């Protein structure tokens, strides 16, 4: 029987990680909750950042969670897609900027 590695319903069980390590789990969730509170950044801005990072991390649970969260905040699909492009741009930029390292190496070896 083949089972998928990811099950959407598992997201609801996220809280259970505290059961096997109570102190660390609780500290993590406290921290997590605090991070997303209204601060120098608005909760809305944080939600969009989370959505972008969820994609660069390619975490299906986070993508589900923050797609819903941004929708709840009245964020439009155009805004969501732009946020993901920001993540994608940084990802591709990070790949391409390493091209300089390749160029440096080529120039040294094949100069």
């Amino acid at each position, binding site marked *: 029987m083949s089972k998928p590695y990811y099950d959407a319903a598992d997201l*609801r069980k996220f809280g259970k990680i505290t059961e096997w390590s109570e102190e660390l789990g609780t500290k993590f969730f406290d921290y997590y909750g605090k991070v997303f509170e209204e601060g120098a950044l*608005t*909760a*809305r801005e944080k939600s969009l950042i989370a959505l972008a990072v969820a994609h660069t991390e390619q975490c299906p649970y986070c993508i589900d969670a923050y797609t*819903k969260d941004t*929708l*709840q*905040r*009245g964020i*439009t699909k155009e805004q969501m897609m732009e946020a993901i492009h920001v993540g994608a741009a940084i990802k591709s930029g990070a790949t391409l900027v390493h091209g300089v390292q390749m160029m440096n190496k080529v120039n040294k070896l094949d100069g």
Partner: protein
Amino acid sequence: MATKSLKKLGNNLAQSNKQLEILSNGIFKSGKLPTFKDKISETSQFPIKAKKLEILQINVGYMCNQVCDHCHVDAGPDRKEIMTRDTMRQCLEVIKNSGAHTLDLTGGAPEMNPDFRWFVEEASKVGITDFIVRSNLTIIRANKKYYDLPEFFKKHNVHVVSSMPHWTRGKTDKQRGDGVFDKSIKALQELNAVGYGMPGSDLRLDLVYNPSGAFLPGDQVAMEKDFKKALMDDFGIEFHNLFAITNLPIARFLDYLIASENYEDYMYSLVEAYNPAAVENVMCTNTLSISWDGYLFDCDFNQMLELPVNSKSRHISEFNEELLEGRNIVISQHCYGCTAGAGSSCQGVVA
């Protein structure tokens, strides 16, 4: 967007008992999720009891110029249930003699009831503190005979509460139909022009936001800020407050949840967001809902589910405020929609 009501389409879910069946079976029957009764019992809040009556909400008919996808009334142009002038007379008697300080007219589009104006004129003489009409905005632009509604509302000092799903055209029209956004904007500008919604104005104009899909409303204060900024920047529109309302899983919204395979997840979201503090102030504790044919219900939702009040006084003709006070509220799993997060009522959050 739909063009016909579920009732007209002969859809199973037009029957309230089918809806109640769905809400009681599946995940709730198997125990995956606790029933609303079990949940509120955890904090000793069962049964919910009606307190002193403050708000009378009268549904003057299910006819509407729109057929919004998620309408909990299953309203539309094809609905023929309309309150008669006789029933309105009985309502007026009750309004005069009851302790309620707020009268809230809803529908469908209440303005489509042929006796709507007569009723507003008569009711405004009774001296109610807050007289609300729930207007869907587009009705004001639907037909010439409605163009003077802003002036009419003003004349009778009506508090206008209107739904506005989003501050962008795309999201609004997706939920309510093509052209709804532009018409709503025009209607809001006309309401502003006669003084509605202006800063410091006594002519109250509030907006209702409810999500366009299977998700819960965000923080009411933050949403109000976003709505105000966008409507002002883009269209120069002012309004007073925004009420963020959760969609309850009944009628067309329930149909949508099931068809889109969102029903279970949505119920999980509601139950996860359950807030016992909101239970204290659910609107059925101070509101009575009267249907087009004069029957009494704990709220507009129970009216649509045909769950009558648990009291000997069941019809406007035998209205008895003392009997109704302290009655046990009739509940089912749809009630989770009133207790999620900061709670939800026709006046927005409650906790």
